[in-house]
């Protein structure tokens, strides 16, 4: 039985609970055991490295040390691409023993020590490569026939630390979506940036960046995302985006595991589409019951 340590991160435990719920349900359906880290804390996202070099490593390392205590040489799965980048960046940095020693000096106050043995992988990597399209296809009870899905990877899922997909032209969602019976709508913004915090700090620019992705995906029935931040930016701001780009934009934005859940025949309620701002029902209505 496949077994993973799970780090949900702040968003998957709050605004993107439906992503966490769907991911856990899908992993369970695929026969994997998932153990959440107790007492995990924020990875520091892209903020901690701006406060200081050491804080940028100490915050992720605190969680890596907790994961390590759950058993040596374990794989930790994350669903948030910003968390993924924080952990991968820290693991790369602590490969240098002097850096690791310094990080551990900081962790002393938490009574923790990290040995550098935890492998961090994105949820999409696990789905595409540990389970794979064939195992996913085998579980499909309600094929997404006729549903045109635009994959959206975002930036940090595949850049710069991804070892499982191409940073410029990612493809790992294609096989999964095809296994579900969906039609993949390829567009030019699959690995573009969603605008991240710019939608808050520099809305005029951030909304245009998010708008260019939504506009590119518009001919599809919905988008499939694999990061809470991408989802928030693409789903919640469509009214504002429409005003800024002067063109009505309305397209449902899903999390990939929600689509897998639907295709596996899991209850629609369990996928919690009701939490989304743009209704997903018009897209789901296209899927044969």
């Amino acid at each position: 039985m496949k077994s993973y340590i799970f780090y949900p991160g702040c968003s998957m435990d709050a605004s993107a609970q439906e992503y966490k719920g769907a991911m856990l349900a899908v992993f369970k359906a695929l026969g994997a055991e998932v153990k959440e880290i107790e007492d995990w804390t924020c990875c520091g996202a892209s903020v901690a490295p701006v406060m200081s070099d050491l804080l940028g490593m100490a915050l992720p390392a605190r969680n890596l040390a907790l994961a390590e205590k759950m058993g040596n040489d374990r794989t930790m799965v994350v669903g948030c691409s910003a968390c993924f980048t924080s952990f991968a960046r820290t693991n790369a940095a602590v490969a240098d023993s002097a850096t690791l020693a310094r990080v551990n000096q900081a962790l002393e106050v938490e009574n923790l020590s990290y040995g550098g043995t935890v492998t961090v992988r994105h949820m999409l990597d696990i789905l595409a490569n540990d389970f794979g399209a064939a195992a996913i296809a085998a579980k499909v009870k309600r094929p997404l026939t006729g549903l045109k899905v635009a994959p959206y990877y975002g930036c940090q899922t595949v850049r710069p630390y991804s070892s499982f997909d191409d940073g410029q032209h990612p493809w790992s969602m294609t096989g999964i979506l095809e296994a579900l019976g969906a039609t993949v709508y390829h567009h030019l913004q699959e690995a573009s940036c969603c605008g991240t915090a710019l939608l808050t700090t520099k809305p005029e620019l951030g909304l245009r960046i998010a708008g260019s992705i939504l506009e590119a995906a518009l001919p599809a029935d919905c988008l499939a995302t694999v990061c809470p931040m991408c989802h928030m930016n693409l789903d919640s701001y469509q009214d504002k985006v429409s005003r800024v780009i002067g063109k009505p934009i309305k397209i449902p934005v899903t999390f990939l595991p929600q689509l897998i859940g639907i295709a596996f025949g899991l209850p629609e309620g369990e996928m919690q589409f009701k939490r989304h701002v743009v209704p997903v029902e018009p897209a789901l209505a296209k899927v044969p019951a």
Partner: protein
Amino acid sequence: MTTTEVIILSDIKRDPALGDRLTPAEHQLRTCIQCGTCTASCPSASAMDISPRKMWRMVQLGMLDEVLHSKTMWLCSICYQCQVRCPRGIPLTETIAKLKQVAIQQQIKQWRESTRFYLTFSDVMQRYGRMRETEFMARYFLSTNPFEALGYATMGLTLLRRGKLKPELPTLWGEGKLAKLFDRVAELEGRK
């Protein structure tokens, strides 16, 4: 028509070691060949006052004041496109974080809405150990532009209704969940 700006380097205050202090690997920035791949790859370049290519040249020349007073670094969305495409393999995106460190340490007031974002986020992390999105957004807007917050009110209400945002009361007393770790880091870095 394009205009050419001439900067007399001997007339301005410079810090020639700036580039070396910013990159993890010494001298990496000096290998920049000014090809402009960074600018061409940047989703925010069109809104910047100094293009990424030009900013890196200014960093090479040690023009710290000019770089810190440009809004360029604050428009970076940390998408790593320039970093993975740089033909010299310079960790550009990660060097932007270092530039922001300098700007925050020097308390550059000009881009307050951006520096407040980092300081508020950091404070919420320290206090609760996890991000509290509602409190973070409320505090961020109150400390920068409360009127801007009005533009987000409708969206905020929709998110609360959908259960996306959790209404939580702030805890303003007691020791922060990560206070010890933050203090220890500051101590090790000689900031305390």
